[in-house]
């Protein structure tokens, strides 16, 4: 192979991270501090996710990286290459075939299985951070389950915009106990957080790991008269015609033309291969 230890990190570091992961799984939603290492990439590029992936990967695993749903953007390509070089694991773009999936800002559209692990990159793990800047105070609020402040944020949303305008990093309550930031996934993905796969969250700069074990209750916070809604653009995908997937809006020209495409590129590709055709794909074919 090469001079790197398997998956870049040394064994003691991986052992330390695995201990944090096990603790995080034992206390769903609780942010476990860990001694985050410097990684050969800048903070904000997924140093937390990479460390969790490195501690999770085995030589038999197949690895997939998602960046905002896509497999072919800078962040996804560089992290995939990183583990190809340092771990020598197989990589794939197909959600089906992957056993470990590292993701930034999306949960795949395909339903994950119990033999898969999904690793989220987290910039700011503390859901209360922008309301309460003191770490000592937010820790106390978590330990005493004082979460009224989280609703103050949602209240502000409604009073300013007439609806809960928080569209990503939408706070959830895990297993009736901890309020958790699900990383900046769109709130469309929130209902998927109750899944069969293990979900791990790594924040490198903030040195926190947390987790949602399979089949754990995850409730999006809301008001009785303003219930939670998993919103998406009201369109079918222009390439594959899917009506159930989260869409990106792409500006086409200066004349105001735009198209909506699945943000999950693997989902879109597999649908097109199965013969589904969207509005713009039809025009091209014609």
């Amino acid at each position, binding site marked *: 192979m090469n001079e790197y230890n398997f998956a870049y990190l040394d064994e003691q570091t991986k052992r330390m991270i695995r201990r944090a992961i096990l603790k995080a799984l034992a206390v769903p939603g609780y942010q476990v501090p860990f001694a985050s290492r410097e990684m050969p990439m800048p903070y904000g590029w997924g140093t937390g996710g990479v460390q969790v992936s490195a501690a999770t990967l085995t030589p038999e695993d197949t690895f997939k990286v998602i960046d905002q749903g896509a497999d072919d953007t800078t962040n996804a390509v560089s992290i995939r290459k990183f583990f190809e070089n340092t771990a020598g694991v197989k990589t794939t773009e197909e959600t089906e075939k992957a056993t470990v999936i590292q993701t930034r800002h999306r949960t795949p559209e395909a339903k994950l299985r119990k033999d898969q692990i999904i690793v989220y990159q987290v910039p700011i793990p503390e859901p209360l951070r922008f309301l309460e800047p003191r770490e000592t105070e937010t820790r106390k609020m978590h330990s005493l389950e004082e979460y009224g402040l989280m609703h103050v944020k949602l209240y502000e949303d409604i*009073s300013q915009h007439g609806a809960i305008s928080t569209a990503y990093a939408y706070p959830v309550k895990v297993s009736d106990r901890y309020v958790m930031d699900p990383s900046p996934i769109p709130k469309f993905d929130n209902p998927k957080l109750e899944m069969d796969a293990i979900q791990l969250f790594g924040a490198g700069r903030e040195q926190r790991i947390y987790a949602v074990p399979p089949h754990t209750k995850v409730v999006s916070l809301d*008001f009785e*008269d303003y219930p939670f809604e998993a919103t998406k653009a009201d369109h079918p995908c222009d390439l594959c015609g899917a009506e159930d997937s989260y869409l990106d809006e792409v500006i086409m020209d200066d004349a105001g033309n735009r198209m909506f495409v699945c943000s999950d590129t693997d989902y879109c590709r597999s649908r097109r291969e199965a013969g589904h055709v969207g509005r713009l794909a039809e025009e091209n074919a014609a």
Partner: protein
Amino acid sequence: MTPLLQVKGIEKRYGARIGCSDVSFDLFPGEVMGIVGESGSGKSTLLNCMAGHLEPDAGQVIFGTRADGPVDTVTMSEPERRMLSRTDWAFVHQHARDGLRMSVSAGGNIGERLMAVGDRHYGAIRDRAIDWLGRVEIEESRVDDRPSAFSGGMQQRLQIARNLVTGPRLVFMDEPTGGLDVSVQARLLDLLRGLVREMGLSAIIVTHDLAVVRLLADRLMVMKSGHVVEAGLTDQVLDDPQHAYTQLLVSSVLQV
């Protein structure tokens, strides 16, 4: 009648120096107690010890809770004490900025305590916020404005509304009129007096302004160097001061 709050032998030291020492008194439901004294006399230390912001070195603060009757709040667990300070207690800071969330709208500020005790109906929370804005004489149209856009007097009134919305039984006030000009002070005092009487609140007011206690307080304690030097009915203490320091304090008030 059982007292709402019994303070027994409270002492707080900062190293070798005395913050306050051997303070004891009873506060009955509906009663307003004033604590006056010069700067550094230990009145704020005493207030913070009673409100659970500081841990006293000795003594008891026994509060008559709704559920369990008299309980010593110094030895009760932190979750219980924090719950108490969100429901039955209120704390009005001298600087409204310390007691408000400046980046959250007025409505959100008032609603925070409601949401903290489990209110989850936006419409109901907002209605109560608007109702309370009216009670402290702030226009309904300001409900979505941030406190940073309010004048000092309005901020202080907003802080009071935010504290009283859960219907507390005991209010701690630390120089509630400090830093306001006299006409705004007068309006605030009128408002406070009305609210205290209307809601049957008990209150402990720390101030160095004798006019404030004259207007609001039923009873008065005078503190000097961490000790209570004189206590009694407000009018009695102010009109016939016995202790040399109280006499000095009363005679120091400027007459216009």
